[in-house]
C-alpha cells in the first residue's frame, strides 16, 4: 500500500501547542513556604477574631454590671430619701451639703456612696415641680475617672402621709 504525500505535516511531526519546560531545581521549597504562610496566617486571623469577640463579651458584661450598680444606687438613694434623709427631698443637690437631717445626719453623706463594690456620686437632684423629680447618678471609674451616668425620674408623693417616694424609673443617659 502506497501512502500519498499531501504536503501537510504528519501528526507525529506536529509540535504540541503547550510545551512544558522541565521544572528547575528549588521550586518545591518556595511553594511549601507560601502554603505554610497561608495556613498560619489564616489560623492567626481566626484566632484574632475570636479574641475580639471575647473582649466584646467582657465589655458587655462590665457595662451590664455598671448599669446594675447605677440602678441599685438609685434604689438605695430612694431608700435613704424616704427615711433618714427625707428632709432633702425638696432641696436641689447643691444645697444638700449644708443640711443636717434627722439624728444629726449631714446631707453631704448622701452625695456619694458605694453599692455592690461600685462607687457612685449624685451629680444632680432636681426636686419635683410639675414633673417628677430627677436624679442624675454617675459611677466613679477606676483611678477616679468619670464612669457611666444614668438619669432617673423619681415620682414623689403629692399628698402628705403617704410614702414619700412612689416610684423610681430609669430615663437613660
Amino acid at each position, binding site marked *: 500500500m502506497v501512502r500519498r504525500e499531501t504536503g501537510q505535516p504528519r501528526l507525529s511531526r506536529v509540535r504540541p501547542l503547550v510545551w512544558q519546560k522541565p521544572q528547575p531545581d528549588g521550586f518545591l521549597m518556595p511553594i511549601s513556604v507560601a502554603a505554610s504562610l497561608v495556613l498560619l496566617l489564616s489560623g492567626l486571623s481566626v484566632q484574632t477574631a475570636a479574641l475580639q469577640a471575647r473582649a466584646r463579651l467582657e465589655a458587655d458584661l462590665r457595662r451590664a*454590671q455598671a448599669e446594675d450598680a447605677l440602678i441599685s444606687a438609685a434604689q438605695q438613694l430612694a431608700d435613704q430619701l424616704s427615711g433618714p434623709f427625707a428632709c432633702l427631698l425638696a432641696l436641689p443637690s447643691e444645697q444638700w451639703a449644708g443640711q443636717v437631717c434627722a439624728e444629726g445626719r449631714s446631707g453631704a453623706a448622701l452625695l456619694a456612696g458605694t453599692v455592690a463594690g461600685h462607687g457612685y456620686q449624685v451629680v444632680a437632684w432636681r426636686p419635683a415641680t410639675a414633673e417628677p423629680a430627677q436624679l442624675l447618678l454617675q459611677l466613679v471609674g477606676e483611678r477616679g475617672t468619670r464612669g457611666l451616668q444614668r438619669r432617673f425620674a423619681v415620682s414623689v408623693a403629692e399628698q402628705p402621709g403617704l410614702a414619700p417616694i412612689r416610684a423610681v424609673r430609669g430615663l437613660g443617659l
Partner: protein
Amino acid sequence: MTLTELISAVLVFSLAATSSLRLWASTAAWSQAAAAREALANGIEADLLRRSQRLRVSVASQPPEPASCELAAGWLRSRLAVGAAALPQGVQKQLIQQGGSVWLVYVASAEGLERRRLFSAAAHGLCPLVPTPPALTDTEVGA
C-alpha cells in the same frame, strides 16, 4: 528537585499545618466557650427583666398595705422569687433581704459571671412615711 529539598519542604509544611491546626482547634474551643457564656449572660438578663417587670406589675395592681419597710421588703422578696421561667443551667439565683431592700443576685461560677441588683421597698412606694424631725439648716454667718 533534590531529596534534601523535598524533605525540607515537607518538614516546613507539616510544621505549619500542625501549628495551624492547633490554632484552629483552640479558636473553636474559645468560640464555643464564648457562645455558652453569652447564652448564659442573655439568659440572666432575660430573667432579671422578667422579674423586674413582674414586680412592677404586682406593685401597680396589688400593692401590699404599708406596714413597715421590712415587711414590704419581705413582700418584694416573695414577688421576686416566683413566676419567672427556669434559669439557665449553671446559674444560681439568690434573694438577700437587707432591711427594707432585697438584693437579687445571679452567679454562674463556672463562667465567672455575676449580676446583682437592689430592689428597695421605698423606691416602689411601699414604705410608710415615718415622721422625722424637721431639717436643721447649718448656716454660717460671717462676722
